[in-house]
Each structure stands twice: as C-alpha cells, then as structure tokens.
C-alpha cells in the first residue's frame, strides 16, 4: 500500500513519452559518438601520414646534407677545369691534371657523375641555358655548343645543372 502511494503506476502514455525521450537521447549520443569517432580517425590518420612523411624527411635530410657538401666542393673542380683551359707550363699542367683526376675519382667513389653535354641536344632536365649562340655552318639548332660549367648527378638526382651555351635557330 505504502509503495503504491509513492510510485505512480506507469501508463502506456507515460512509457511512450519516456521511450521517445530515451530514443532521442540515444540518437544524440549515437551522433556524438560518430562525430567523435570521425575526428579521432582523422587525427589518427593525420598522425600516420605525418609519421610516414617524417620518415622520408629524415632520409632526405641525410641526402640533402651530403648534396650540400658535395655542391660546395664542386667549386674546386670548376676552378681546376678553368685552370686546365689556360696555357700553363707543362709541369704545372701535368700536376693540375693529376689533381683533377684525383678530384673526379673521389666524386665517382661517392656516386657522383659528371654532366658534360657538348654536342648533345639541349635538355633542361639536366642543363641550364645561360646563353644562346647564333647558329653557325654545320651546326644543329638546340644543341649544346659549349659547357660553361659542368653539371653533376648524385646517383640519378641532378645536384647541379650543367651551364651551357645553346645553338639558336
């Protein structure tokens, strides 16, 4: 008896109403879970991608560091080439040639190869045109007439483009 006084007997109406409220709450919770899950997945994916990219970054940082140093040293080779193009006495010339050979052998051992395209068709993927020369007799347009500065590749990657004079039309 006492209990009956305190607790109202549930009616179909009250239960239906309660059911509606609970349903709405459930829907809201479901939606919230979905959006939370979505943002969590996005963050997780962002992080995964970041990790992957970061891995490349580290490898690239090593390569870039190596390239930076090689590029700085290449200048010494340029000067040697320049010296070799001048008329010097025989003994000096011989010595310079030996240094130049030592230089290029050292680079080769590191996987560095020359790009020296005299007479080849001009290709901006490996060459940088610094001048255009008027076409002379027996000369083919768009080929490399002269190399101002040799280019270099480290394995397959161009680390310095060859500076060239290109024959015009």
């Amino acid at each position, binding site marked *: 008896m006492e209990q009956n006084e305190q607790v109202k007997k549930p009616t179909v109406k009250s239960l239906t109403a309660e059911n509606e409220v609970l349903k709405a709450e459930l829907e809201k919770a479901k939606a919230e879970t979905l959006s939370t899950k979505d943002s969590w997945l996005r*963050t997780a994916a*962002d992080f995964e*991608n*970041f990790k992957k*990219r970061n891995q490349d970054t580290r490898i*690239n940082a090593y390569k*870039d560091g190596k390239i930076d140093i090689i590029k700085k040293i290449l200048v010494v080779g340029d*000067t040697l080439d*320049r*010296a070799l*193009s*001048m*008329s*010097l006495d025989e003994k000096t010339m011989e010595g310079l040639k030996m240094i130049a050979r030592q230089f290029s052998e050292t680079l080769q051992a590191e996987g560095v190869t020359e790009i020296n395209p005299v007479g080849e068709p*001009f290709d*901006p*993927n490996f*060459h*940088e*045109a*610094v*001048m*255009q020369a008027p076409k002379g007799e027996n000369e083919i347009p*768009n080929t490399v007439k002269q190399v*101002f*500065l040799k280019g270099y590749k480290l394995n397959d990657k161009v680390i310095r*483009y060859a*500076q060239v*004079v*290109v024959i*015009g039309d």
Partner: protein
Amino acid sequence: MGKIIGIDLGTTNSCVAVMEGGEPVVIANAEGARTTPSVVGFQKDGERLVGQVAKRQAVANSDRTVISIKRHMGSDYKVEIDGKKYSPQEISAMILSKLKKDAESYLGETVKDAVITCPAYFNDAQRQATKDAGKIAGLNVLRVINEPTAAALAYGLDKDTTSHKVMIYDLGGGTFDVSILDIGDGVFEVLATSGNNMLGGDDFDKKVMDYLVDEFRKKEGIDLSKDKMAMQRLKEAAEKAKIELSSMTSTNVNLPFITADATGPKHLDETITRQKFDALTSDLVEMTIEPLTKALKDAGLSYGDLAKVIMVGGSTRIPAVIERVKQVTGKEPFKGINPDECVAIGAAIQGGVLTGEVKDVLLLDVTPLTLGIETLGGVCTPLIERNTTIPAKKSQVFSTAADNQPEVTIHVLQGERKFAKDNKTLGQFNLTGIAPAPRGIPQIEVTFDIDANGIVHVTAKDLGTQKSADITITSSTNLSEDEINKAVKEAEQYEEEDKKRKEAVDNRNALDGMIFQMEKALKENGDKLPEEDKAKLEELIKEAKTELESNDNDRIKAATEKLSNEAQAIFAKLYQQAGGQPGGADANADGDTEFHQS
C-alpha cells in the same frame, strides 16, 4: 571537407602552403624547392614546362618562355606561342596547376579548394583574372586575399581586437610593394599602397657585380664584362656574397683563373665588407623609402601612428634594409617567418579559417611541471617530465626498502626540485597488504595517467598479489603562469645544491643496501666461512653502520668502498671454494627504485 591550399602567386616566384594539425606548412615542389619560379616554357614538341625547369631553358627558348605574367593580369594582353594565343589567366593557370599537383602529391589527396593572394592594388578585373586562373587550373578559389593581409595573418595580427595601423614592406625578387593596413577585430582594411614594380633583389646582385668588374679593371686592366663565361661566374658569386653578407660582416669572392691575357692567368680575389655592400646598394634601399612616405601620406597618417611594421620578401633579409626601415618608421620590424613564404602561409591560414580548422584547433595541453613520487631518502623520482603533451601515461616498477615491509606510501609530487620536501604534495595514499618478503623483492608498479583535462590518476599495484590502490588528483594543472615560472626558476637556482644532496642520498642508499646484502649473505653463508673471516666481516658491517649514521657523504663513500672491497675479497674465497663466480656480495642497491619505509 578536403584541404584548402594557400597560394602566393608571385611575379617571379610562387609558393604554396597548407594547414596541417593546426599549423601552416609550406609544401616543397616535386624538385624539392619551397618556392617555384613563375615561369612557363613551351617546347617545340608541344611539351609545357613550369617552374625551375622552364627557367633553365628560358635563355635558349626565349620566344616560347613566359616570365612575369602577373604584370599583365586583368589586361587584354595575349602571349602568342606557335600561333596559339594565351591569356594571362591561362598562363597563370599553368603555374597554379603545378602548385596544385605538388600539393596533391604531398598531401596524398585531391585538392579542390584554394585561397590565392594578389597585390593590394589589384583592381576588380585583376582579381577576377586571378580567380579565373584558379578556375582554369581546376581550383575552386574560395577567396582572393591581399598579399599584405596574408602577411599580417601569418604573423597573427588578426588576433588583436583593437584597431591598429600596420605597414607591410614587401621587397621581392623583382617588385617592391608597401601597404598600410588598418586591422581591427579580424577586419583588414587597406588604407594605402605604393611601390616600385621594377625594383628587387636582382638589382642588389647587379650592384655587387658591377663593383667586382670595376675593381678587376682597376687592378688588372681587363674588362670582364666582355667575357660571358666570366660574367656568369661573377653573377653567381655576387648573389652568394649578398646572401652571406646578411649573416656575416665580411665575405671573400674568390674566383681563380677568371681570365687570362698575354702575361698568363688572372685571378679575382676580392673581400667585400658589409659596410661596402651597404654603400654600394644604399641608393636601392633609399628608393624604397619614398613610396613608404607616400603610402603613409595617402593614408593620412604619420610614422607615429604605425603600430607595427612587417617585412616580407627575400630581400628584407638584407640588414641595411631592416636598419633603414627601422630608422625611418621608428619601429622594430617584425620578422621571424621566412619572408619568401610568409604570404603563402597567411593564405593557408585564411584557408584554415574557412574550413574551421583554425578556430577548432585541437589545443593539446602540456603538464606545466614534473610529476613524480617520493622514494628512499626523500628523493623525488619523476615519472612524467614537465612539458609532456597530455593525455599521457607512464608506469615504473618500484620495490620496498625494508624486509617484510607490509605497505608502501605513494607520495605524489609536483615540481622540478630533486627532493620531495621542496616540491608540492598533490596527494598521498598507501598500498597495503604486501606479502612478507625481503627488501627489493616485491614489485610495485606505479602508473601515472593524465587525461586531456589534466586530471592525474595514480595507481600503485603489487604485481605479486595484484592488489592495487589509487588516487585521483584534479588540481594538478590549476597553476598560474607565475607559479609555474617560480617553480622552474627555483629548480634552476637550487640545481647544484640539490644535485649534491641527491648524490649524498644516493651514496647513503648504496651503503645501506650493501650492508643489507652483507648481513643477508653472512646469515646464509656465514657457517661456510672461516671464523676469522666471519668475525672480520661482522666488524666491517658494524663499522659501516656507524659510518652510515654519520651522515657525512665523504665518510659514507669511503665506507662503501672499504666494505665493498674487503667483503668481496672474503666472499670471493667462498665462491672459489665452491667453484662458482663471486657475486653474492653484489650490493649495488639502487636507491631510486625503492620506497622509503612508511
């Protein structure tokens, strides 16, 4: 919604950036460079080249190479190549396409939307042309924003709510722009613009080159300007010298065998000081001051009205430029963001605002101070270091400090000092019911778990009995900036002293541990030892105990060494008898991993 990229479509160079995890990131192009030359080249076979590769073939293919197309945006100008006419929008679209592609390969997803920048002085037709260029490139251009506005965004100037006037000084590779903005409550208003569209970094290189040619002529009597190959080398050396002089006060231009005459090879060896460089280029710097004054006048302002000055463009790295602008405006110019990338970064931030990413930045908090527990000797052993990004979780296994210790007290501490008493107590609880065992044997795992709200949950678990106890601390991050700074400062101040004290405690713990090990060994193996050795050992232990009570670091250290050496010699004999390895007296107790007895 996909990512929105921000593009600085420049006259000489372009740059693309994107928001990533709430931060703007500049995207390197396929060739690995962070900016892309705004150059388009058409090969005879119809192939189209964009960027660095187009720039490399420009000299050999000048009629089919388009540079600085931005200067023609919004006009009826057409570029004719192989009989086909291209509008500036179409050429710009080719540049945008490349940037879009580079961004896509970086992000690993298709990019549809973009924010593109344009100069503040662009009129409606020019802005429309910029938008159309994006459309042709397959981009949905959500906004075309002013370059100075983007720069201000990059520096976060939109966050100031009160209205203030800002000057943006943009000295790029080939153009100079100055803008005066009124920024307030996230609204940017362009008050005035001025500039010189034929002034930029290349002019500074030219000055250095001319100087080197002059000097060489004076010294050697040879005119290098007639030697194309020499000039090419000089051009590069001049640019390098300019760059070096931004960070050094002097640089050396060293070009051996630059040329030759009848007397033999000639070398160029010239030292350029920053002072010399400044003198050579002072007229160029001065040329930027007049537009600056003009813009200010047009805006109806005086220098005193400016709240901030922002420097954009690669040439603003030149110290003399910064110095002169500072002198004229009376303001220390804002720098810090890479001036070549600043505008693209601002565009990316605008993109982030549009996606809601910027507003909705997930602010990951950090623990302001180190969290740890007290261990043997009153030492504070850190578990989670300060500045750890939360949520975070860390566990460490500890043990008891005495035989048959039935319980341990977990004293949770916050602070940077080495000793518990100097740090703040966050809470304390006991883990009871530890099974009787010699010291060092029970394994008690203590776990700190901080959730995203900074609530710390500490659990201690006896791995033997699986019994556990815990505490939840809600106030660990309720510290004011001042309190945090004070704690960190204090720790620095007392670092040396604390270190000495900690060392003393470590030494004491080591001796204490060793005495314990010796007593144990004596109890277990004493009967196997000759009487005299046994007596000697007992005497040694007694002596060590006295020394331990002395609390004198040097005496404790000496006693540890003595006990260790002499006792080991005695035990070694025992093991030699048994044919085993000495090791029973290995008493290197690790003070850090033991609790003090509660």
